């Protein structure tokens, strides 16, 4: 099989991937940008398009930003990564605009408090709004990729990373549109594969493509993962109709000064949510739902009515209208919901993943030649991410990973391609179309998603997590016998089958990391360990492959002595 030759392959073409790829290409590397979705898609495309910056207000500074990050992240952040994020946040919108994005300006053409947002968990107004929201950012990313010397391969799913003697050597992928394998030899690979929201479908507001591929690919190749139990739930999403379950309805900073959370019996559970983190509100909701105080649709009630009596409350309504959330409420619940005249039925939804590939300040993982950026990487946000920092992270860490990978590739000799392994991986895919085993891939994928929501959701305990580990093992056994349609091109069966293999690995790591962390911190809530335990658990959970199996280690917080 003919292998393509590159200096760097970047997997994933949302904000982190495109930024990394074009930065590396500008530094002289020959880069292939390979993406499951078209270039510029991924979750970047469907984001609200608000990007954190720093220093729009004179009182703001990287030091304040850093404090916000670690307070919000409940001190689980990797201090070095959080420091980089804070120091370089002001670069994020500048990088995006250099790609062609445009952020809303004031009447004088500048960026000032009036056009900036104070997103959830931030002390100051420091986040800026992109024209066209995430779509606008995403179109600029695609344009910047077109402008750059990178080669692109869209609609292609990576199935295995190849390594040789502890170094990256290339990868094997499957071109979904052409229905053919792709083998690439390269001394450096950047994982910018985004998060894992789809592992919780329908309880997610993420793209269908967010199946956590990069975590499993990196783990399999020998790289370390960190704090994989930290799955972020946004507190408010639709509970019905079925086609809209999990669709984002807002976060705490949007609910106005008089927003209240009620249970099904209209008992007040929370007020003053505006200044609470996503984790704090989601936690209260998950615990109430577990007590059986939910509505018949499995949600709680977000009552925004009293906001309409105050100017600041009415401004909150306007903000929700501007970002499109009221339209969603109207489609799900009708015109009274749009007008905030009746409470919304809401349930937490998976939005983001704080854990991921363990990286240094330059995006390097523990495996030589393997880099990660964006949601695929862990550690910047600790146990809870603040609003608008994910988009900023894409540009800041995408750029860093691109520069570092280019530098690495320049100095590296090229490991030989492990040809047998590559041929085996490609053959494993090619034999799937038309396979006549027992289980359809989508059936197992839906079982995995259901299991993650039920047992590895916003509240966890040892009994359910242990059951989840066993059920995942059983699913992995069933996944040995798959039944697929004969098509090779644009086959949903085949895509689900390839993602299923990776999701089973990622789900196992998430579940066992959650079992390991015997405390409640940020997005990780243990009903059997309801308190934060700094004496024991101000520590990272590091997952790695050892002797063919998962090994978890509890390590002192990176960078802290």
């Amino acid at each position, binding site marked *: 099989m003919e292998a393509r030759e590159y200096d760097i392959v970047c997997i994933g073409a949302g904000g982190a991937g495109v930024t990394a790829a074009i930065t590396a290409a500008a530094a002289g590397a020959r880069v292939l940008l390979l993406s499951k*979705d*078209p*270039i510029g*898609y991924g979750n970047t*495309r*469907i984001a609200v398009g608000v990007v954190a910056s720093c220093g729009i207000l004179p009182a703001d500074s990287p030091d304040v930003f850093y404090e916000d990050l670690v307070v919000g992240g409940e001190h689980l952040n990797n201090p070095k990564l959080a420091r980089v994020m804070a120091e370089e946040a*002001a*670069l994020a*919108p*500048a*990088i995006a*605009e*250099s790609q*062609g994005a*445009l*952020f809303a*300006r004031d009447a004088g*053409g*500048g960026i000032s408090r009036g056009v900036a947002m104070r997103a959830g968990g931030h002390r100051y107004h420091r986040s800026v709004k*992109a*024209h*066209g*929201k*995430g*779509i*606008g950012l995403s*179109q600029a990313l*695609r*344009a*910047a990729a*077109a*402008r750059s010397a990178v080669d692109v391969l*869209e*609609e292609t799913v990576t199935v295995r990373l190849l390594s040789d003697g502890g170094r990256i050597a290339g990868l094997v992928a499957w071109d979904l*549109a052409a*229905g053919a394998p792709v083998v690439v030899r390269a001394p450096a690979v950047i994982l910018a594969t985004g998060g894992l929201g789809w592992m919780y479908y329908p309880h997610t*507001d*993420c793209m*269908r*493509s967010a199946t956590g591929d990069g975590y499993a690919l990196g783990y399999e190749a020998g790289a370390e993962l960190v704090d994989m139990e930290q799955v972020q739930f946004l507190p408010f999403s639709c509970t019905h*109709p*079925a*086609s*809209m379950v*999990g*669709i*984002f309805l807002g976060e705490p900073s949007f609910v106005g000064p008089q927003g209240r959370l009620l249970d099904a019996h209209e008992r007040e559970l929370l007020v003053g949510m505006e200044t609470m983190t996503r984790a704090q509100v989601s936690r209260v909701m998950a615990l109430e739902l577990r007590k059986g105080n939910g509505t018949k649709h499995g949600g709680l009630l977000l009552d925004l009515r009293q906001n309409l009596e105050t100017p600041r409350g009415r401004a909150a309504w306007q903000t929700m209208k501007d970002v499109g959330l009221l339209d*969603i409420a109207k*489609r*799900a619940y009708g015109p009274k919901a749009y007008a905030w005249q009746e409470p919304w039925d809401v349930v937490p939804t998976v939005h983001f993943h704080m854990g991921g590939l363990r990286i240094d300040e330059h995006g390097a993982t523990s495996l030589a030649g393997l880099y990660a950026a964006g949601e695929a990487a862990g550690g910047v946000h600790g146990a809870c991410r603040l609003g608008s920092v994910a988009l900023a992270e894409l540009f800041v860490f995408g750029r860093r990973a691109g520069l570092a990978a280019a530098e690495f590739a320049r100095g590296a000799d090229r490991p030989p391609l492990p040809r047998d392994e590559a041929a085996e991986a490609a053959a494993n895919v090619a034999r799937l179309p038309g396979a006549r085993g027992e289980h*359809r891939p*989508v*059936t197992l994928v*839906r079982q995995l998603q259901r299991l993650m929501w039920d047992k590895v959701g916003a509240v966890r305990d040892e009994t359910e997590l242990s059951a989840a580990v066993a059920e995942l093992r059983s699913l992995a056994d069933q996944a040995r016998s798959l*039944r697929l*349609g004969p*098509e090779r*091109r*644009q086959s*949903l069966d085949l895509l689900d089958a390839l993602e299923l293999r990776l999701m089973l690995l990622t789900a196992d790591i998430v579940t066992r990391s959650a079992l390991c962390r015997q405390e409640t911190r940020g997005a990780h809530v243990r009903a059997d360990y309801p308190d934060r335990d700094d004496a024991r658990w101000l520590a990272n959970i590091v997952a790695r492959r050892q002797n063919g199996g998962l090994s978890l280690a509890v390590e002192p917080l990176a960078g802290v002595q």
Partner: protein
Amino acid sequence: MTDHMISISVERSDPERGREPAIETYEVPAEAGATVLGALLHIYETCESSPAFRCGCRNQDCGLCAVDVNGRPRLACITPLRKGMVIRPLRRLPVARDLIIDRRWIMPFLERFDLFVRDGGLREWPPRLSAPAEHARLAACTECLSCLAACPSFEAGRDEIGGPYHFVKLAQLYWDPRDGADRRAQAALLGIARCPACRKCACPLGIPVYRAAVAPLAGVR
């Protein structure tokens, strides 16, 4: 609870394997709030040989799921499901299989027409800029390609015969204060003079495609 079931039809084809377009009928649950995308997902989950389709965000943000419903381009994720609906791939675009249209021509198109702002590098940020309202409106285009499917003068695969989507891409830059290229000349190359101003290029999200993109590039007031 048993859902009320209804029939819908889906056009299937597989050019790769020489299968001509043919209509197949499926029974799907029609619960309150059901959408076309929900029906396609249901068919996929329950039928061994399901039509192929695209699904992204389920919430009208990504533009991937556009299909033809009863002769009109629609985003499957926000289109209410009705009895007897006929679902086809978007018209006038090359079909890869079933409801999936080819999308790989877009990157080469962007490259050929230099559809990007020139790289100014990382400068002091933020530069003072002011962009007209049209810029923000057009930046929200999800590239679902519904406008192309509805355009009577567009022909796929021929550069000299562009359609509304092509003009939206040009106009995004035409309204960008940083772009210095002659986008109207490019629109002429793409055959904007052929536009009959029929305004069938209606956008599912309400972007004024003709008024904000086509007319300004064509020099129509």
